[in-house]
């Protein structure tokens, strides 16, 4: 039996009827192929209007529905529900917009009516080709995976756990804490980093709802929103976490050297013990050491086993192997942070070849009261510097390295200047291009530093060398720079130089992104769903990003984002179920030649190539139905459900052949 289309024309009071000759339109519709009946009504969206459709459907007079009324953005859902109520697939309905895009915008009745006729003819033709689609709902698993245990991951995990939801926190390093755990003070308030971070870390370790997996990495992620299957590799610590009580006997006695014990001050910078069995820093969570295989005498040379002997709880286990854990979660929060840019590639700054040229993270460690210098700022030879230069934008704002501004270096450079002034008598020079101090209290902090007699030179350092031109420059680092405000090229001899290196994407972020089906931008950071309105969501439902994994930012912004993400996750969890797109795209295996044209096109990475069958496949749970791949497939092997070629061709023909 051919398709029987029911056409319903809405007057919308006089909104439509005032500009369109309804009678003429209905007469026209009646003559169209496949049209079984035509009705018009004052307000189609009202209950009686809806009932008209419902009774026709229930009576079996028609099997597809066209409503000519307002915009589908307004009432598509209303009429789809009518179909559903009448036991007809809601995708067998289509809407003709004769209000917003017709009666409301055209002055002349004749031409409005003509346009309405064309639009209606197109809808009717389209309706003939409509196909029923399955609506799908998925349940949301209330557990959440947080990847990365810096301040971002810690905050997000705590928020969720406090709300009573289970969290698995996976941290790659032996301890959580991230970069913040390496800082002494934080700008602009100069709070002690440990004082604010440590209590939170402890909470993570103890929270009943948080399953902390440190020294672990996510290996595989499959599935989709609400139902992700996760596989995590627990790397071998060689210390049994259940037995160890963190007494420290092992590292006190360990003869292995992870960080050299001899050498100059800068070579042996470290926060935790320098031995092979170590904790990264003293407040580590979990407070359990790990053995560094690379430097452990037993693993390298087969002899030692001292730690085993001294450990009273028999926690050392050299035979431990990596193990795997698999579990399910409903949502994922990526909080993998950043890594500092390695400035040794900028040869003219001499990092790695000139002594006393340090990176900012090294300088933080030196300032940390619990670190190897006890918080003292020292030159490599152990003496106190008389002058220190702080070079901004190293690897940032530079096309050779990273084009973006790293956003926090200006401020931590000011923090450094303050710490130096506080701890030493040294002269401090800040070499900057622009000072970006935009946060709450930031400009005030700059103002304070100006008062502390810190010297500011506007100019990016040309080079740092040890080439001495005058006697008083001997044994010093010579910074050559244009003081752009004065307009002079200056040579400044300094005892120490700190390079404010860029925050760059974490090593391995691409892999995490790929596993989660999210994309990374040109700068390597994960792309958020919308730069303003979706800064913590991603294009993939159920995957969120927080902290520097999204882009460089400071701690206040990181924490704000973390709380935002956890509330977004909570909103998902409380919904319990979500509906996923039914109008997706589908690849017909019999037609796909495996040309792989489509493989790169999907913004949601929904398209994969099946190496065995040599065809591409779409993961419909990821597909959002944009249709980009459909238009590209040269074999027409991909169909866009609800927007397939036949439907659109029919629409085109309808629009143009009606009268």
């Amino acid at each position, binding site marked *: 039996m051919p398709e029987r289309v029911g056409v319903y024309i809405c007057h919308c009071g006089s909104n439509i009827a005032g500009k369109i000759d309804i009678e003429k339109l209905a007469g026209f519709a009646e003559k169209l192929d496949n049209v079984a009946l035509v009705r018009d009504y004052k307000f189609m969206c009202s209950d009686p209007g809806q009932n008209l459709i419902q009774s026709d459907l229930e009576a079996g007079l028609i099997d597809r529905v066209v409503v000519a009324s307002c915009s589908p953005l307004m009432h598509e859902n209303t009429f789809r529900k009518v179909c559903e109520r009448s036991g007809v697939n809601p995708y067998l309905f289509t809407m003709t917009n004769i209000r917003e895009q017709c009666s409301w915008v055209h002055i002349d009745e004749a031409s409005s009516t003509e346009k309405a006729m064309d639009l209606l003819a197109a809808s009717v033709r389209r309706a003939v080709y409509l196909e029923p689609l399955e609506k799908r709902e998925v349940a949301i698993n209330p557990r959440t995976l947080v990847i990365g245990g810096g301040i971002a991951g810690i905050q997000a995990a705590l928020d969720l756990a406090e709300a009573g939801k289970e969290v698995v926190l996976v941290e790659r390093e032996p301890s959580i804490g991230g970069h913040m755990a390496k800082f002494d003070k934080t700008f602009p308030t100069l709070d002690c980093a440990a004082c604010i971070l440590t209590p939170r870390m402890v909470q993570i370790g103890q929270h009943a709802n948080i399953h902390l997996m440190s020294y672990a990495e996510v290996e595989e992620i499959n599935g989709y929103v609400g139902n992700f299957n996760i596989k995590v590799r627990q790397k071998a610590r060689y210390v049994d976490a259940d037995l160890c009580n963190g007494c420290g006997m092992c590292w006190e006695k360990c003869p292995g050297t992870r960080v050299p014990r001899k050498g100059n001050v800068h070579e042996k910078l470290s926060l935790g013990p320098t031995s092979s069995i170590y904790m990264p820093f003293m407040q580590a969570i979990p407070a359990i050491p790990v053995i560094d295989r690379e430097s452990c005498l037993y693993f390298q040379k087969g002899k030692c086993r001292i730690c085993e002997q001294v450990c009273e709880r028999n926690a050392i286990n050299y035979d431990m192997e990596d193990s795997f854990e698999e579990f399910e979660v409903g949502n994922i929060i990526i909080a993998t942070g950043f890594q500092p840019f390695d400035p040794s590639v900028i040869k003219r700054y001499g990092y790695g070849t000139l002594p006393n040229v340090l990176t900012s993270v090294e300088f933080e460690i030196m300032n940390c009261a619990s670190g190897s210098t006890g918080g003292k700022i020292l030159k490599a030879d152990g003496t106190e510097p008389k002058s220190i230069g702080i070079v901004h934008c190293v690897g940032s704002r530079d096309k050779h390295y990273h084009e973006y501004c790293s956003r926090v270096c200006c401020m931590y450079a000011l923090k450094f200047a303050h710490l130096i002034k506080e701890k030493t008598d040294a002269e401090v020079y800040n070499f900057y291009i622009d000072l970006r101090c935009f946060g709450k209290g930031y400009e005030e902090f700059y103002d304070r530093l100006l008062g502390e007699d810190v010297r500011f030179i506007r100019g990016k350092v040309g080079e740092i060398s040890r080439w001495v031109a005058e006697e008083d420059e001997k044994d010093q680092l010579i910074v050559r720079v244009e003081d752009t405000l004065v307009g002079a090229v200056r040579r400044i001899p300094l005892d120490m130089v700190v390079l404010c290196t860029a925050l760059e994407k974490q090593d391995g972020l691409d892999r995490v992104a790929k596993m989660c089906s999210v994309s990374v931008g040109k700068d390597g950071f994960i*792309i958020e769903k919308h730069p303003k309105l979706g800064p913590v969501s991603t294009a993939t439902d159920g995957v969120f990003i927080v902290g520097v994994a999204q882009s460089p930012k400071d701690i206040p912004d990181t924490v704000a984002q973390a709380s935002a993400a956890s509330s977004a996750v909570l909103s998902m969890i409380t919904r319990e179920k979500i509906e996923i797109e039914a109008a997706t795209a589908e690849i017909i295996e019999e037609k796909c030649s495996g040309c792989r044209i489509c493989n790169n096109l999907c913004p949601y990475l929904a398209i994969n190539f099946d190496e065995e069958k040599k065809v591409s496949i779409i993961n419909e749970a990821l597909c959002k139905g*944009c*249709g*980009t791949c459909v238009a*590209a497939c040269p074999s027409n092997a991909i169909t*866009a459900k609800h927007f397939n070629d036949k439907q659109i061709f029919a629409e085109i023909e309808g629009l143009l*052949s009606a009268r």
Partner: protein
Amino acid sequence: MEFEPKLVGFLCNWCSYTGADLAGTARISYAPNLRAIRVMCSGRIDPTFIIKALYEGADGVLIAGCHPGDCHYQEGNYKALRRYKLLKRILPEYGVEPERVHLEWVAASEGEKFAKVVNEFTDKIKKLGPLNMKQSIFDSMKEDIVVHESAGEEKGGEADEA
């Protein structure tokens, strides 16, 4: 009677179709010549649709999508742009003025712009005159259809369909 062009528009659901709706809600009147087809994303627009529309009698085709960077599906509009650009290059080979196919970025907030775009496009096509693609193709084949005594009836009649 003045020539009233038939124009087909392919509008993306999120920005341009919404923008067009906004023109309606704000009662901004514009030329009635454009008939819109809604697709979810400008990335769905297969150039074949445009060729098909021209063949079926459209005098011009408008493509509208989200502004670069605003695409609801992230990058569909860039793909639309690239296809559009290549398509424009070949239109003259068909004897079709490239201006007959036009792409605009229209945001959901740009009702006014949508109206303006439609008015301008309508004017432009009015100036160009009718395209009549199907008819003219068959017209140029008219004299090719020879009736053969031996063969009696023949199949050249497709032109009638036009």
